[in-house]
């Protein structure tokens, strides 16, 4: 039988004594090893927060201070005196020095009790929210479909995967250029097709509604791949034997999806949706390189226009940036609420 060796296994010929209980290895590592769980966690978080503090928190604080001062368009000092929240008030009341307003609604006494200063699609808040919600929904559904396809085992899957990820690898400038040219009646045929479908007018890139749709399509084209990649990773890390259990228990493919795949992929899916939402809420480059910020003003459009528009209104820019962050923060709290209910979730 197995143990017919003369030498006793595991002892013979070894010059290594039994392991001792001395601490082995590097003393720093050992110090780390004996930290309490919480202390260890904080230690591991130091690098991340150090980087964030330098690159994010410190600039944000300075930007916030900026937002509390007045604009100064002349002179060496880019900022005027301290004005408190005046800039914020201007932004929220539609009186900011911006070509398109953050939000421009006022309450009225007659139904429906709100009055639009300008059409919804010319108010950055609504453009952005609409864009984020619609694009994320489509991207999630399509991304799931793509991930599902990629999760199958078939020949050529690697190349299909390349194809599906390719849009995500396209720089925004190019993404913008593609769709700009596609809907440039002289060059592309996009307008003809859409007009033939009765969806678009003659100059979609100049029309807020049509341009909004174009930007949605462009974004979905590019970013579904992001969702697909993350969801795919989620799918791949599901323990396959659970599917066996479910199959024997009588689950149809749909039921397996609903009861096993979906909940187990949910954490990854939520992360993907969370970040897609935040990205979508900050959409800018795509707009700039297709229809332009005038036609489809997003929140970030306002920030960039204010900051780089040529007229030095840094304080307004800073205030818009913070207002934007606030809006995104509010939307994100919806997600945080969901995260709490998710098994294997983050909190």
């Amino acid at each position: 039988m197995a143990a017919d060796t003369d030498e006793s296994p595991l002892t013979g010929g070894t010059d290594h004594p039994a392991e001792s209980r001395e601490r082995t290895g590097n003393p720093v590592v050992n110090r780390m090893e004996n930290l309490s769980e919480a202390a260890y966690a904080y230690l591991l978080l130091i690098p991340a927060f150090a980087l964030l503090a330098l690159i994010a928190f410190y600039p944000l604080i300075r930007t916030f201070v900026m937002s509390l001062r007045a604009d100064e368009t002349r002179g060496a000092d880019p900022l005027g005196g301290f004005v408190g929240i005046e800039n914020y008030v201007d932004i929220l009341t539609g009186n900011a020095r911006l070509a398109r307003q953050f939000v421009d609604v006022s309450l009225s006494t007659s139904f429906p009790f709100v009055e639009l200063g300008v059409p919804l699609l010319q108010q950055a808040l609504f453009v952005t929210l609409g864009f984020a919600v619609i694009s994320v929904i489509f991207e999630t559904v399509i991304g799931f479909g793509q991930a599902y396809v990629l999760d199958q085992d078939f020949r050529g899957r690697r190349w299909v995967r390349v194809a599906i990820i390719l849009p995500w690898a396209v720089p925004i400038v190019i993404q913008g250029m593609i769709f700009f040219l596609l809907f440039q009646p002289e060059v592309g045929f996009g307008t003809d097709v859409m007009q033939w479908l009765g969806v678009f007018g003659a100059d979609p890139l100049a029309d807020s509604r049509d341009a909004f749709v174009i930007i949605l399509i462009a974004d979905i084209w590019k970013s579904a791949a992001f969702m697909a990649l993350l969801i795919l990773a989620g799918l791949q890390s599901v323990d396959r034997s659970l599917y066996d259990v479910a199959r024997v228990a009588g689950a149809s493919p749909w039921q397996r999806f609903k009861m096993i795949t979906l909940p187990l992929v949910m954490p990854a899916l939520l992360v993907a949706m969370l970040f897609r939402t935040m990205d979508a809420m900050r959409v800018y480059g795509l707009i700039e390189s297709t229809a332009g910020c005038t036609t489809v003003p997003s929140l970030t459009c306002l920030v960039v226009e204010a900051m780089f528009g040529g007229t030095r209104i840094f304080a307004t820019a800073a205030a818009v940036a913070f207002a934007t962050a606030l809006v995104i923060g509010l939307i994100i709290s919806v997600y945080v609420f969901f995260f709490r209910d998710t098994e294997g979730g983050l909190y």
Partner: protein
Amino acid sequence: MARVRLEHITKRYEDVTAVDDVSLEVADGEFVTFVGPSGCGKSTTMETVAGLTRPSEGNVYIGDDEVTNLAPKDRGVAMVFQNIALFPHMDVFENISFGLRLRTYDDEEIRRRVEQAADVVQLEGMLDRMPDELSGGQRQRVAIARAIVRNPDVFLMDEPLANLDAKLRVHMRTELQRLHRELGTTIIYVTHDQAEAMTMSDRIAVLNEGRLQQIAPPLTCYNEPANRFVAGFIGSPSMNFADGELVADGLETDNFRVDLDPGEVPGVTVGDAVTLGVRPEDVHIASAAGDLPAVTAPIEARTDVLEPMGDEVFVYLLLAEEAGRSMAEDPATASDQLLMSVTPDTEVHEEQDLEVVLDRSKLHLFDSASGEALRHGLVERSEPESGETSKAG
């Protein structure tokens, strides 16, 4: 109706043949246990019945239907998995009710059934725990509950009781037997526990290296094993074997001989290599074997190690003095050793010389070459026996 039939099932992996041409039939309502060494293909065979593995060759029938290609969900089977595989994102209740929730049961009914099943496996009060808050045995019980709650035609259970303590195991054993009786379900069961296999099964299927060795009622396997493998595998501790040669008037092994008439052993002739098998409990101390009708001639032996088990004591006997022998070698295969089991009150010490006899009615003969059983029990022979211990080293 829920008969299960395997026809020439073979399953090959890249470099292994996990199941090799297995055909067997499990009658409706029958309880069949698969036993065999680790890696012999028990789980794989079950998976082909469940539909999780498509056999490389052969067909599977459940009831009257060929189901080889049917999806698992349409086969009406429930399975307890060897690796347990609880859904990590569901609590115990949801795990157990998984199969029910796939169907159109109302919540009331589901809760009732889950609670019953949890009762059976003694998981009351843990229904809202998550799998990672359970002990190993508790998880296994959840897995069992998940299968029994569904009340299918065929149960497949792959070592469902492996992590349970003896007492709970006895409880579960009776529960499963009751379920079996009451529901009339066909059960295919894998266990490594001899007691489980012996007490629960209508028949035992012994597998080795992917091949079916014997399928027969437990006591048949125990008393009339089809071949040397089955004989050695069934029964714990294992049967003693001694390789020998058939001579004119008996069987001669290295250390002793047994009288017999070669003509009464079918299929072999004088000069053939024949292996003698005898179970530890059929080895008796010569002085205390008075009441046995037929025993072999006394064999001289020396006790080596004693293993008290509480209700019995295993005595390792050395038949020949030899250097360097250690207990580590499997006594069943070392032809100079003999394992005897005696009651705890027997007077026996380590390093003691004594004479033992074998119960002739319980001797087994196997063809040494093929391993096939030749004969079980030599007791019909009427002439007196004379054994002698060989001195050979």
